[in-house]
């Protein structure tokens, strides 16, 4: 499964939206970390990660997201995980990272 990341910054609302699709694992998590870190450094705002098309993430992907979260916290921001699939939500829950990130959407209602 290919991985895909699309970002959009709304200059008026000051919102950074990133759409993740496919699988993030040990093979590409370093690239994801680099790309998200770059975006966060550029805009210094909250990060909305739209995960409806994200099929899978592993421990290295979580590590990458935690590293980006630290950068976002530096600007007093947060990372919002939006509409993650049940299997992706489960990974956040079993690692207790559902308390570090803000998860929003179906499996969290």
């Amino acid at each position, binding site marked *: *499964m290919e991985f895909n990341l699309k970002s959009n910054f709304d200059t008026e609302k000051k919102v950074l939206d990133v759409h993740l699709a496919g*699988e993030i*694992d*040990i*093979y590409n998590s370093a690239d994801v970390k680099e790309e998200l870190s770059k975006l966060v450094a550029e805009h210094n705002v909250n990060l909305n990660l739209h995960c409806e098309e994200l099929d*899978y993430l*592993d*421990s*290295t992907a979580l590590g990458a997201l935690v590293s980006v979260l630290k950068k976002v916290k530096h600007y007093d921001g947060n990372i919002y995980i939006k509409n993650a699939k*049940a*299997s992706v939500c*489960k*990974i956040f829950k*079993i*690692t207790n990272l559902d308390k570090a990130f803000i998860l929003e959407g179906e499996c969290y209602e």
Partner: protein
Amino acid sequence: MSDDSKKEDVVELTLPVNAAYVSAARLTASSISNRIGLKIESAEDVKGAVSEACIYVIKFCQSYGENLFKISFVPKDEGLEIVIKTNKNPRTPEDYEGDEFIIRMIEALIDVFEIKIENQAIEIYMLKKF
């Protein structure tokens, strides 16, 4: 679909120590889980556990100079058994401690889980029950 599926079929994968092929292990795990009738959620758990076990072994192999590792999938009456093994390597320490975070994740996803060092090799045993 036939009675033959009751026999012990072993599916083995030999993978290079390369992050690029963890997805191949995951795909195989998912396919076999579905084929033996694990529920979708359980199949997702197996996929995650196999992936994490591969990361654990890849990190070990990178530290101790191994190039290959092997995964066996064995459908059992009670569920799916997965064994991941490295080659015998005289440099294998007796008390290797891998990533604690990975171990916690696998424990949460799988019913029976054990890591042992035997004959100078790492062996990860996992069982996901029906």
